């Protein structure tokens, strides 16, 4: 099955669950929000005292998408396509975007424990787990921490391990420089650079960007965007795993895909041509192609 470019209507993709939608509508005085109109439910869930902002859409087996460090809270179109077959959950990590803070978290491993609590709160025994970039690191940690909670694992240009290939220090880059590094195609880069330039002009956007960056720094500054202890835990992952990578990723070069492949010897590896660090955003069709094939074939 091939997932086509998203063409969503609320009638074909029901809400994740009715109580979820009811909660949302009650909390917003029954006014239809932009999110609801596009079939994406938004709500806040309380995870042991931390407010987590959650976007969700679709029906089917649960799929948890863990966003990257530079994600400003968007629902990428590619997720809408996945919502045709799956109940897609896209939380903002604690300390990111519209979620609250949790000052006890100071490592990605802490975050992994936190996400087990989130799964409990959502009543999800196990999920398909897709993690992009920073979210990929987190996904690998969760899948090794409690293998029983992860049915299938997709790592997309994932941080978390180190290869002997130089990478730019993302913490030393401005928003525009990050955009320049993150995308390959001229159109995607131009658009992303334009958006990044807005960040420094718009105080509320800048605050969101800076807070996300602080939360990333808090867990990923040292060791730089990886956890050497993960190496001794990855053998615990039992979920069938797909490694997806942009061939032209300049933030985490493709050598990192092969590093992951060496650590997860049974994983399938798909390198996407003419793609940078964010395949789901830059080349959604190609991304969905390989993900759909993987999820379909192991279903």
């Amino acid at each position: 099955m091939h997932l086509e470019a998203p063409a969503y209507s609320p009638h074909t993709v029901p809400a994740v669950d009715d109580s979820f939608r009811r909660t949302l509508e009650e909390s917003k005085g029954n006014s239809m929000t932009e999110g609801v109109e596009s079939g994406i439910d938004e709500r806040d869930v309380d995870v042991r005292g931390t407010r987590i902002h959650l976007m969700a859409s679709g029906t089917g087996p649960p799929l948890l998408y863990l966003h990257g460090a530079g994600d400003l809270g968007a629902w990428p179109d590619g997720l809408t396509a996945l919502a045709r077959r799956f109940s897609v959950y896209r939380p903002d990590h604690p300390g990111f975007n519209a979620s609250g803070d949790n000052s006890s978290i100071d490592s990605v491993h802490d975050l992994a424990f936190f996400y087990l609590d989130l799964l409990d709160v959502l009543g999800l025994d196990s999920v398909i787990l897709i993690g992009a970039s920073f979210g990929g690191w987190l996904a690998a940690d969760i899948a090794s921490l409690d293998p029983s909670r992860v049915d299938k694992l997709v790592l997309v240009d994932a941080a978390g391990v180190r290869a002997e290939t130089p990478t730019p220090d993302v913490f030393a880059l401005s928003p525009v420089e990050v955009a320049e590094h993150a995308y390959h195609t001229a159109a995607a880069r131009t658009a992303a650079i334009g958006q990044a330039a807005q960040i420094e002009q718009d105080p509320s956007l800048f605050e969101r960007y800076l807070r996300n960056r602080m939360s990333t720094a808090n867990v990923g500054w040292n060791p730089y965007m990886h956890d050497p202890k993960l190496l001794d835990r990855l053998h615990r992952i039992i979920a069938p795993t797909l490694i997806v990578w942009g061939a032209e990723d300049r933030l985490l070069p493709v050598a990192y895909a092969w590093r992951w492949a060496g650590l997860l010897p049974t994983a399938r590896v798909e390198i996407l041509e003419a793609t940078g660090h964010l395949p789901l955003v830059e080349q959604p069709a190609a991304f969905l192609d390989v993900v759909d094939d993987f999820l379909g074939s192991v279903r």
Partner: protein
Amino acid sequence: MKLFGFHLMPYTDLPEEHLKSGDSSWVTLTNGAFDPVKGHELYQRYISELKYYDEVGFDGICVNEHHQTAYGLMPSPNVTAAVLVPQTTCKIALLGNAISLRDHPMRVAEEVAMLDVISGGRIISGFVRGIGAEYHTFSMSPTASRDRFYEAHDLIIKAWTEPGPFEWYGKHYKLRYVNPWPRPLQQPHPPIWSPSQGSGETVDWAARHRYAYLQTYSDIKTIRRAFGDFRDAAERYGYQASPEQIGWSLPVYVADTDDEAMEQALPHLDFLFNSLMRMPKDVFFPAGYLTLASTARVMAGKKGLGSGGADVRGLVERGYALIGSPETVRQQIESYQQELGFGLFSGIFQFGSLPGELFRQSVRRFADKVMPHLRSAAREEPH
């Protein structure tokens, strides 16, 4: 007014290609560009210049700490101070030890206590967090910087003032035995200074502890606001800030005439602000180094600094440096002092590529023609 002479000990002989490149002079400037033989000569010169402050009658010398940069060759203020202690009689202010960057704050407690005991109680102990770039240098998350600073400070003060051994179980430091030998000579502990770039949290922290607050590299508008905030904070904590608690630190150059002073100083100030201080904004202010609340206001006060493109004459006009004849410099300090009420003044008389000869002439003119007017009290004698 208490007068201090400050020195950044810069490495001035940078490769042409680096100067032209616009690249950072911090963190990533290769240390292959450091020539140890030239370094030796510079250290000899700089130590003699620091001693010169003492010789001409300053109340004290300021030394500080920076890392992985040509901006200043002083990774350890305690080493510089140790060199100066037997060669001087004035106060020595450590501006400061970057306690958040140390793996172990007890090393600072021990070293500063040693210096205080050896010097006969001449040490002023500044505590700082280190600048943003240094969190890159040590791969230490800037998000923990402030927390580590507070905890390291609390631990050091307790170690200096309460008999050990005691146990310490904080968030960042966990110690079964805190019991440093020696303890400082000055009681209850050496004076604490808080040099800062003006974040609201630091202003409040310094006022709460009744420490001296020292503002560096800021335009006069920012200085005015920071000193006002400090006084307000002191009042909130139930007291009036004294002049000795408020300090201003900036580059100073004194020549015979204003024009001569500008002509002689500007190229070297330019080297300081546009070559040595140059670094990307995200290295200067990494995420988490400042709180969300302080980011906007501190960055506004530092606009242009570090970019490599600052208009130096404009910086002087905005109060980042005092350049002029003895009369001009005296008038400016006096009128700012009257308005802003600071009782500590720390002049950075060596800046950028300023040659030794010009440094000495400037310091001598200041000592002869400015200092006598600013002196409010006799120089304190050490133990």
